[in-house]
């Protein structure tokens, strides 16, 4: 059942990319979706498919937009570091215990951290993130919980219930 659900999502995404096409292609697309679905069901949705409500979908869209907004300053900042002859970096590795307690929101947080200026998620274990920072002060939005608050606001509401 899980395989069918995963395959359906993959198939729909592929359709968006591949339309218009011949009937033969549809059959091939469906076959490949099922094959990938078999492999992905174990990895992606090990605890069963997430319930897709309209609110969660809206949250996902808002989250993606915030991600897009945060990547511009992040890329500019790393570009500035790279282009300076002295390369002003002093990397540190920090640990951060997450307050978020769902896989889904934890993944979102890790992605946000990676696309925030100067921080890159390295590892996640038992609710503790290992984060590589280009410089000590880049860790601040993570340490003071600003990023986590933002994700809670956008995504957590109904994952709590």
């Amino acid at each position: 059942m899980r395989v069918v659900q995963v395959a359906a999502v993959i198939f729909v995404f592929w359709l968006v990319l591949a339309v218009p096409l011949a009937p033969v292609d549809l059959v091939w697309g469906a076959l490949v979706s099922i094959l990938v679905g078999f492999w992905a069901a174990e990895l992606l949705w090990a605890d069963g498919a997430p319930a897709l409500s309209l609110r969660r979908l809206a949250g996902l869209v808002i989250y993606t937009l915030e991600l897009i907004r945060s990547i511009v300053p992040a890329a500019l900042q790393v570009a500035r570091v790279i282009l300076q002859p002295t390369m002003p970096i002093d990397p540190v590795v920090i640990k951060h215990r997450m307050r978020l307690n769902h896989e889904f929101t934890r993944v979102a947080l890790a992605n946000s951290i990676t696309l925030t200026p100067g921080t890159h998620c390295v590892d996640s274990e038992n609710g503790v993130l290992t984060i590589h920072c280009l410089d000590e002060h880049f860790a601040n939005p993570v340490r003071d919980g600003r990023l986590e608050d933002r994700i809670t606001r956008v995504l957590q509401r109904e994952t709590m219930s």
Partner: protein
Amino acid sequence: MMAAIQATLAGLLIVAGAAFFFIGTIGLLRLPDFYTRVHAVTKCDALGAGLVLLGLAILAGFDGSGIRIIALIALVLLSSPTAGHALARAAWRAGLEPWYRKSGHVGQ
């Protein structure tokens, strides 16, 4: 007139995207260790790919293929940090030590 504006805007976006790819590559060469390089590549390449694709979407017009390209942008932005994370995690678990400024062994 409309076509000229469209082409100019698309051209600017694509050039800006290429510039970010270029800077990311310079970073790959200049930065001292694996972890700092992953920073450069995930951020610059994700934004670079996003800008180039956005330029192409504008060129294609916001009908069929334009919308498809927008879907690709979302996919790139979601998968790029994930790929960067997978790389960094593999290095971390393999025991690769990050470069620190204090420890003395400064890059090249």
